[in-house]
């Protein structure tokens, strides 16, 4: 909601489809969504996954865009935010490739205008020293934002604490992304795309390209 308010995204028309998860999916207007996952059993589990763009260190979406529609996706040097150009029209076929390149299935598109949209890491706020809208709003401290080094330290410390109770707890792809989730159970129980599988969306050509591309210096991170 804070995301929608800050970014002035339109409301989706929703219905209750038998779940508290609404809107049902990310979209051109919905950039952050809590996914509800109920695990039935004697001991019920209910997981919440606040899905959003991971702002990858080396974003595959950008790699595709650089080849097909240069300028459609940029990466802010200061913050590392991966940003979709809100003014650039993309061909549907190119969008399909961009979306499929994303291991987390994040990119969304408005066919009538050809514009792509997703979480911006609120770089317009962070570059002014403010917290991203969602982080600022959360009253319980579920989200933390700051320098990558500090956040990784915090994340690992918390992981060790949590492992005392949840033996299988992990951090989701901490080396590859700037939005790091701490998960206490099998990632699949949270969401199909909670963690990246090595082969999803990355062609061999791309994988090779990645190996040869130098990593840019990366400072900022969301945890």
């Amino acid at each position, binding site marked *: 909601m804070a995301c929608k308010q800050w970014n002035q995204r339109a409301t989706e028309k*929703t219905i209750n489809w*038998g*779940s*508290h998860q609404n*809107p*049902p999916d990310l979209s051109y207007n919905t950039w952050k969504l809590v996914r509800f996952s*109920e695990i039935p059993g004697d001991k019920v589990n209910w997981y919440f996954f606040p899905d959003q763009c991971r702002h990858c260190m080396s974003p595959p979406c950008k790699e595709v865009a650089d080849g097909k529609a240069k300028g459609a996706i940029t990466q802010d040097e200061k913050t590392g935010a991966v940003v979709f150009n809100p003014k650039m029209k993309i061909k549907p076929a190119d969008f399909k490739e961009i979306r499929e390149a994303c291991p987390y299935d994040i990119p969304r598109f408005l066919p009538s205008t050809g514009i792509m949209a997703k979480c911006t890491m609120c770089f317009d706020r962070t570059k002014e020293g403010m917290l991203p809208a969602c982080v600022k709003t959360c009253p*319980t*401290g579920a989200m933390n934002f700051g320098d990558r080094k500090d956040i990784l330290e915090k994340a690992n410390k918390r992981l060790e604490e949590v492992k005392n109770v949840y033996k299988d707890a992990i951090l989701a792809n901490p080396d590859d992304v700037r939005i790091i989730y701490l998960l206490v159970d099998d990632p699949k129980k949270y969401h199909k795309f909670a963690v990246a599988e090595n082969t999803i969306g990355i062609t061999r050509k791309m994988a090779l390209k990645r190996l040869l591309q130098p990593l840019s210096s990366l400072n900022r991170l969301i945890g």
Partner: protein
Amino acid sequence: MTNHYIDFRNADVILNMGGNVAENHPVSFKWVQAARDKGAILIHVDPRFTRTSTKADIFVRLRSGTDIAFLGGMIKYILDNNLHDEFYVKNYTNASFIVNPKYSFDDGLFSGYDPTKRAYDGSTWALEKDENGIPKRDMTLQDPRCAFQLLKKHYSRYTLQKVTEITGTPEDDLVKVYKAYGSTGAPDKAGTELYAMGWTQHTVGVQNIRAMSIIQSLLGNMGIAGGGINALRGESNVQGSTDAGLLFHIWPAYLPTPQAHLATLADYNKTTPASKDPRSVNWWKNRPKYLASFLKSTFGGKATKENDFGYSWMPKLDTGQDASWLNLFDEMYKGTFTGFFAWGMNPACSSAHAGKVRQALAKLDWMVNVNVFDSETGSFWKGPGVDPKKIKTEVFELPCAASMEKEGSISNSGRWMQWRYKASNPPGEAKPDGDIMYELFKKLQALYEKDKGTFPEPILNLKWDYETNGHFDIHKVAKEINGYDLTTGKLLPNFVSLKDDGTTSCGNWLYSGSYTEAGNMAARRKKTDPTGLGLYPEWSWCWPLNRRIIYNRASVDLDGNPRDSKRALLKWDASGKRWIGDVPDNAVPPMGTDGAYPFIMKPDGVASVFGPGLKDGPFPEHYEPLECPIEKNLMSNQRINPVVKIFEGGLDTFKTCDPKYPFVCSTYRVTEHWQTGVLTRWLPWLIEAEPQMFCEMSLELAKLKEIKNGDRVVVETPRGKVEAVAIATSRLKPFRIAGQTVHQIGIPWHFGWLHPKDGGDSANLLTPTIGDPNTMIPESKAFMANVSKLTKKQPAKKG
């Protein structure tokens, strides 16, 4: 609350029962989490697995309406296993007090019951006093007539087996909770309980909370950091509204509303609580000072000693009259009222048996609807099935400012009065409530001046000078609430200065000290915390006297030393002859062997294990809800609370143990909406998140009724029916009650027909007109309903 929100972080064990803290008080969960980060455990007891349950270390299920059975079992477990805090029980409670020999309890009824009146004569519940009027005690707690032994006897009936049969909670789960919570009986352990409507909205609502008060008294958790009885109030300023006396039975600051037979001030003051015990502070003995000062605030210079300070101008209740909500709307339905102010409320959706209310509104000549948005109440005349041509009620809609468009204070659940500033102007013609009230009454006074009218004195003599430069000035009201020394014109420092001779005025004695010569205490925002316990004594102001944890002298031993060094709330400094820490309750020396008891607001000065002051008994007893799934109460032959008022006939139907309504139904909230949704349903982003009325049910029940997740269903009771979307979930499971399978369903009460058009209507169309005998709070949390698949075709439209 006896404690406050931040104090949750001081607990070792947090019990959230009768509430759903993470979803409905999300910001406060920060403090629950802070406790857990220090190793505390959270126990959640609820019919449903909710977002709170995901964070609970122990989650157990119970059937709606069986909390006393559950807690009764806990009392038995605590006593059987000697988990109670013996020192505390002996010294700070009335466990040692001897009870009248005529007191008895048999088969669900306490002594003194009159079945024709459906009421108790409570005289046999009295505590024995000696020739000096001091309660007789047995400090060894062995006398069979002492409260402790009677408590033990009463709850010996709440065996694990019995409790399981009633609640549906497996025995292992009961023991898990009892053991974990019972561990806080140790003097260096603190247990807190957080509750909300899940406990209050029952025909045994008050006794639910009483049961927990007994537990907290046994475990020594009252008056300590990380302890207490903590109501999570359902509205951001409902604490302020009850403090201000908005309920029919109280004047501001909990002075009882007089009944007609108390014709003079002297008559009223004769009912002031009294105690002959020199060790009981009995603070309420000061009531005449607060009453006189309140009347001076009300009538100003017109109130004199000669005219009883205007006491005869104040409205009174008829002797025995109960003007609570259910009775009020029953009268409205009967056509008793000409007009009605629906001020910041939406009774067409918030009232139990909302359908009766909607019909009642049509009986009015006029109604004034003051709200931020239009509502089902303001627009009742064009509601579903209503023909506007047949409605004679004239409705006036007065738009008012939202909370950030006006200045003033809000009192949170923890009694903290926090001043808020105006952030933006209200739109169009909308005005703050204070301005509307102020101007309205000025007009009324002018009309009475001109046209006289019947009994004009209360109107014309009312002190009504809260303006600056012709505009309503809320600071003037706040100052009057604090009170003045009328001889000097100065603001009073606190209520200790109040007098009964007409030389002081004070709108609300509890709030005296909130706006003094030093300034607006409620507006303070200092983050200093000298004790480190999260008291933040200079952040805002709390009543009484900025005392953050009440009854805090129960946290020390007889010499005034903290019994728990980790939570040193108060400590007596013998050399300085003062208490260090929180504001002491109250500023008398340590109890020692002949000093004052700590529970200063109670006539006997101690916490009540035996509580003779309620209408339905001195000990909580399990009774089934009015509508329940089993024919017989397993505890006794009294199926329901023997003193509840039953509305007879007409629209007030109810059905119990009826195969047409086989499922236990409860009502609750979601984080995304608030109350009747009168404010939240107009916000597109909130509707996007929770767009429609839903009905949660177990996977087993869904299968039984051939309902698929996402199907449209109808939920029905004898009072009405509501359409909803089925959410079939593993978070609800069937209960095993007295050998039968009992299903439970649940619905939110956030929706109304006005907007959005496809959102659904109010859950309160289903709830029964029956309430707790002490408060008349409706039993919205446990009634019987049916749910079935909606047969007509609905256009399928997935998001």
